[in-house]
């Protein structure tokens, strides 16, 4: 197949980046910034899968291609880049370093899209590195001490990850005798190379203990950048594992165990760390870490039990898309929130934010809930030993996420991020709403979108409400508790009873007002009754009725009582066993 | 009896008559000198053609023949030495024209030409002699002329140095004469042919040892080098060039020649010679490192280089001189050309800057670039960097030493090379440092026609390395050491 579509797909962001350095073209480039991933999106949506193309003369032989898996990644990634680009356009309007941001943004985009299309190890590595290094500029953008620190941490981890990746790829390539990813996937790679690759990708995924860079980086980057960092780029780690590791063909029990354990720890440790954050975007970052822990569970299971991989992988893709859209929406929403100046509009945005937040938390029938249920089903095929734990962990992750989301909502009010001055409030709202809508609609469109890999989602139960509820309740409790701690017990108690007292007072007032009317009624009603009775001769009718009734009762008691008309019914009480479990925090 | 005009006779007697004529007619001295040089060079070229055509050629002078008469003989080696003398002498003379042109140098001009032509006579005689007594006479002629050249400038330091040179020379001559006498008393003959195959009796060895010590004194082999640095450093530049480039080589040539005919010296003796050479290499190098004046440094470098040539003798070992003489001969040629170039260049630098204190070379804005460049080129050959003739000589020396397993001589050579790099780089640093000059540096100041002669010599020293193969095959003509290569 011809290379042209790929050149179009990848050349667009590259060309824009180059154009951006030319002062005259800048305003034009910023205007089309949202559309930079469009050609890639079009390729993924319209192309016939699988499609590959190669250029032997580029680098060490460049192979590009898209298949059913990668095109899904391209779709949600591209969508997110579009939205982020639209936000960035306004966000960066008056920024003195806008050009540098734009170039880095586009380069990272190029890397991200490119790695999804790469079909050989070298170009994959190249695009991966491009994305990682270009993001450095995004993280660093604000140049505040926090950003500098975050960037330093970030680049350190990036270098570590790249090195591990390089080594892993080199070893894998040597073992497979080929650099084509399809060949790598079918080779039983040595333990060390799998471990190295795993480390390289887990850095990107932020699996503990390789997560340190992620929350500060996501917190420090400007809103549009953190949306793609957390929504799109983080998925490169997942994509890398899916596309390079010989999952489904060889078993790596030890690696799988480690990864699953790390995933479990990640899910909950990220919660513990996340709820302590004051920066709402850092909270979101920790939430991402936590969510990636879920993906790690699936990957770990796939490493352990190759037979289960076929069932797991569609779910992982769905979860990736789910998280990308929901988290992207949240980040963009943070920006939208910050851009609002009025209290009312802020409230409205907060309400809108609740949707993606709940989706992320796994509201039943939302993509979150479906995804988790599907993952449970898929993991059921994997390891019977681990299964109960996984199920519990997955369920509880819902609680954890809800708590984090609650924390996020609280912090967004308490500690709103800074938006650039003169930002049009409605301009950044639109991308946010778009992604939120996409996030909500994901379960509905997934069937048509994913076609061959959509089955597990279609069949998945809608999921349970209780983790979310539980989380909400806990969050509320914690909020109340925190509130009480903050203002002191006495005041808090008075605050607590204030509504009741107010209600009482109000009731008193009402009673007082109504008493007079009642009294009036007490007088007028008997009078009216008497008049009506007189008018209708009620007295005589009533006496006649009584006589009839008495006769009837007399008759009844004299009849034999062999048959019972109403048999006695048995009652079983419903136990509330599930609610006895409370998260241990 | 008709006197056959032979180029050999011409090359000895033309300079002699030239010297007399130049002494008698001081006004025309330069003209006479050049005419003599041209004639002599022509004779040498003629001789070279004969030798190329017929191999070694001989001529009994006055028809007496050996063992009593005086024979002249020319083979490849001697013609090469003659050619070296002619070429270097010619170019030094050209440089002398410029160097001695000032009015205050009238006296020097007057004496330079006769002395130099006398020196040429002596040297050509040495290269063509076939008996040791004749060698003695010629060496004395050289010594007297050389002392005259040394003191030409008339300065007190030069006179003192010349006197010391004179003492050493007289003493060396006496030892040589004693040795010659003893040889005669032992063998009854003085010609080279008579020496060949003589039984190495104790007395004969003693006689040869006397001769060797005498020559070592004249050629300034460590530790008998004491007179050389002062003498060469204090003479005027052309005189220094002649002394260091040519005069020392005459004695070296005699050693080489005698080694051909003498009984083979014992291994221990050779080692002793080599040790002396090694001492010269080290000591000369160290002294050059310490020298404060440019010409003194160059003079000490001569001491070191002569030591290196003796190391080349010493590495002969069991193989004998049949191979190692080539290395020595190449080193002699290389040193002759390069050292003459270097002394002339040093003289030019001194003339331009006004002093030759190494430490202050960089304090002046005057940079005689071409002379400095010449100096550097000559240094390349002296250090022995490729592709110079010095490199080729060193290559043969080390190759032979390695093949014979004499690693210590290889080590000495390498140490000497490193030392020479060290001391010459002192000079280069002086040439190339600019931050101690306040005035703007005149880069091309000091271009003069006078630079042509030293530059030509230096380029020859480098370029002859590329022609080493023809040079080698030429000096092998007549198989001076009796073994076909």
């Amino acid at each position, binding site marked *: 197949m011809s290379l042209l579509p790929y050149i179009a797909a990848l050349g667009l962001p590259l060309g824009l980046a180059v154009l951006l350095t030319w002062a005259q073209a800048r305003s034009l480039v910023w205007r089309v910034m949202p559309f930079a991933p469009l050609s890639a999106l079009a390729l993924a949506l319209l192309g016939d899968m699988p499609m590959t193309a190669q250029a032997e003369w580029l680098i060490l032989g460049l192979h590009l291609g898209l298949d059913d898996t990668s095109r899904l990644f391209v779709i949600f990634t591209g969508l997110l880049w579009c939205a982020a680009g639209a936000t960035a356009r306004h966000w960066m309007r008056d920024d003195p370093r806008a050009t540098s941001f734009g170039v880095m943004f586009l380069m990272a985009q190029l890397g991200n899209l490119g790695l999804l299309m790469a079909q050989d190890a070298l170009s994959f590595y190249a695009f991966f590195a491009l994305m990682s290094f270009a993001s450095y500029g995004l993280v660093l953008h604000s140049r505040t001490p926090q950003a500098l620190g975050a960037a330093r941490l970030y680049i350190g981890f990036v270098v570590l990850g790249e090195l591990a990746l390089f080594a892993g790829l080199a070893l894998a390539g040597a073992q497979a005798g080929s650099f084509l990813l399809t060949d790598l996937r079918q080779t039983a790679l040595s333990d060390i190379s799998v471990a190295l690759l795993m480390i390289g990708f887990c850095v990107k995924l932020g699996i503990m203990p390789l997560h340190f860079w992620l929350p500060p980086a996501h917190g420090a980057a400007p809103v549009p950048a953190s949306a793609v960092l957390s929504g799109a780029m983080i998925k490169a780690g997942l994509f890398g594992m899916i596309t390079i590791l010989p999952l489904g063909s060889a078993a790596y029990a030890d690696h799988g165990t480690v990864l699953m354990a790390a995933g479990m720890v990640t899910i909950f440790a990220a919660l513990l760390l996340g709820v302590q954050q004051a920066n709402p975007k850092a909270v979101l970052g920790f939430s991402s870490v936590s969510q990636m822990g879920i993906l790690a569970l699936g990957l770990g299971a796939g490493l352990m039990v190759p037979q289960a991989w076929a069932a797991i992988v569609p779910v992982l893709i769905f979860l990736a898309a789910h998280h990308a859209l929901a988290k992207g929406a949240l980040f963009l929403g943070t920006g939208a929130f910050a851009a609002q100046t009025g209290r009312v509009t802020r409230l409205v945005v907060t309400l809108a934010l609740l949707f993606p937040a709940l989706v992320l938390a796994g509201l039943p029938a939302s993509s979150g809930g479906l995804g988790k249920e599907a993952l449970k089903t898929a993991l059921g095929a994997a390891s019977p030993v681990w299964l109960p734990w996984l199920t519990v962990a997955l369920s509880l992750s819902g609680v954890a996420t809800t708590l984090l989301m609650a924390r996020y909502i609280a912090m967004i009010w308490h500690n709103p991020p800074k938006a650039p001055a003169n930002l049009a409030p409605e301009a950044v709202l639109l991308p946010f709403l778009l992604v939120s809508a996409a996030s909500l609609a994901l379960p509905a469109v997934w069937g048509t979108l994913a076609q061959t890999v959509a089955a597990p989602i279609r069949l998945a139960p809608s999921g349970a409400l209780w983790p979310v509820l539980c989380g909400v309740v806990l969050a509320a409790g914690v909020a109340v508790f925190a509130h009480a701690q903050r203002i002191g017990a006495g005041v808090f108690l008075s605050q607590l009873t204030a509504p009741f007292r107010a209600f009482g007072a109000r009731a008193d007032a009402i009673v007082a007002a109504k008493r007079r009317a009642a009294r009036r009624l007490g007088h007028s009603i008997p009078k009216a009754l008497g008049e009506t009775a007189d008018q209708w001769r009620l007295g005589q009718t009533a006496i006649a009725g009584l006589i009839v009734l008495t006769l009837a009762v007399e008759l009844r008691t004299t009849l034999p009582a062999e048959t019972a008309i109403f048999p006695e019914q048995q009652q079983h009480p419903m136990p509330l066993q599930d609610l006895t479990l409370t998260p241990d925090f | 009896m008709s006197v056959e005009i032979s180029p050999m006779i011409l090359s000895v007697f033309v300079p002699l008559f030239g010297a007399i004529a130049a002494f008698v007619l001081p006004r025309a001295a330069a003209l006479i000198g050049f005419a003599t040089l041209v004639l002599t060079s022509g004779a040498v070229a003629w001789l070279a053609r004969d030798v190329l055509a017929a191999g070694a050629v001989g001529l009994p002078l006055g028809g007496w023949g050996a063992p*009593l008469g005086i024979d002249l003989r020319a083979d490849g080696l001697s013609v090469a030495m003659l050619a070296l003398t002619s070429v270097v002498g010619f170019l030094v003379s050209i440089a002398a024209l410029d160097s001695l042109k000032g009015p205050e140098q009238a006296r020097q001009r007057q004496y330079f030409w006769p002395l130099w032509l006398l020196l040429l006579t002596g040297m050509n005689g040495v290269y063509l002699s076939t008996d040791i*007594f004749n060698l003695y006479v010629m060496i004395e002629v050289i010594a007297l002329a050389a002392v005259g050249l040394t003191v030409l400038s008339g300065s007190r330091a030069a*006179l003192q140095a010349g006197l010391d040179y004179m003492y050493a020379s*007289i003493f060396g001559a006496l030892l040589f*004469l004693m040795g010659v*006498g003893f040889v005669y008393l032992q063998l009854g003959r003085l010609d080279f042919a008579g020496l060949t195959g003589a039984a190495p009796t104790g007395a004969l060895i003693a006689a040869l040892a006397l001769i060797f010590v005498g020559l070592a004194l004249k050629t300034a082999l460590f530790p008998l080098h004491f007179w050389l640095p002062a003498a060469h450093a204090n003479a005027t530049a052309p005189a220094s060039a002649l002394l260091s480039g040519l005069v020392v080589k005459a004695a070296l040539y005699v050693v080489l020649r005698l080694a051909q005919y003498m009984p083979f010296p014992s291994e221990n003796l050779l080692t002793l010679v080599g040790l002396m050479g090694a001492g010269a290499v080290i000591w000369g190098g160290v002294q050059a490192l310490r020298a404060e004046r440019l010409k003194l440094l160059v003079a000490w470098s001569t001491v070191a280089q002569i030591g290196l040539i003796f190391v080349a003798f010493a590495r002969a070992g069991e193989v004998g001189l049949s191979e190692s003489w080539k290395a020595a001969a190449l080193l002699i040629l290389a040193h002759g050309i390069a050292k003459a170039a270097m002394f002339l260049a040093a003289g030019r630098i001194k003339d331009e800057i006004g002093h030759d204190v190494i430490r202050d070379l960089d304090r002046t804005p005057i940079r005689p670039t071409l002379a400095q460049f010449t100096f550097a080129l000559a240094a390349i050959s002296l250090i022995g960097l490729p592709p110079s003739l010095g490199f080729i000589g060193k290559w043969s020396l080390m190759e032979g030493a390695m093949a014979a397993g004499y690693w210590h001589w290889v080590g000495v050579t390498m140490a000497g090379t490193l030392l020479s790099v060290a001391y010459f780089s002192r000079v280069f640093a002086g040439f190339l440092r600019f931050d101690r000059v306040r005035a703007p540096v005149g880069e091309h100041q000091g271009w003069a026609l006078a630079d042509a002669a030293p530059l030509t010599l230096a380029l020859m020293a480098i370029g002859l390395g590329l022609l080493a193969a023809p040079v080698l095959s030429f000096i092998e003509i007549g198989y001076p050491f009796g073994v076909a290569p």
Partner: protein
Amino acid sequence: MTPDLIYGLTGVAVFGIGLVGALSAQDRLRRVLALKLCSVGAGFLLVVGAWREPPAAPDPVPHALVITGIVVMVSATAVALALIRRLQTLEATDER
């Protein structure tokens, strides 16, 4: 003790005296004279070497050598003396 041995040893002794003098003398003139003594010793030795038992005539070649040596020594001495004189003149002017 044949006469030639006596003469020979004498020659060696004279040469040795001259040698010691040449090496140890500080004064320029003394050094020249010591060298002259050396040359006399050397000549003596050679002449002795040329001696033959009386019916035979002495070998002429060493005599020729000695005569040449004397000539050379004379010229060399002359040069050395000229140098010494010139030096002394220079030193005298310097001191003044």
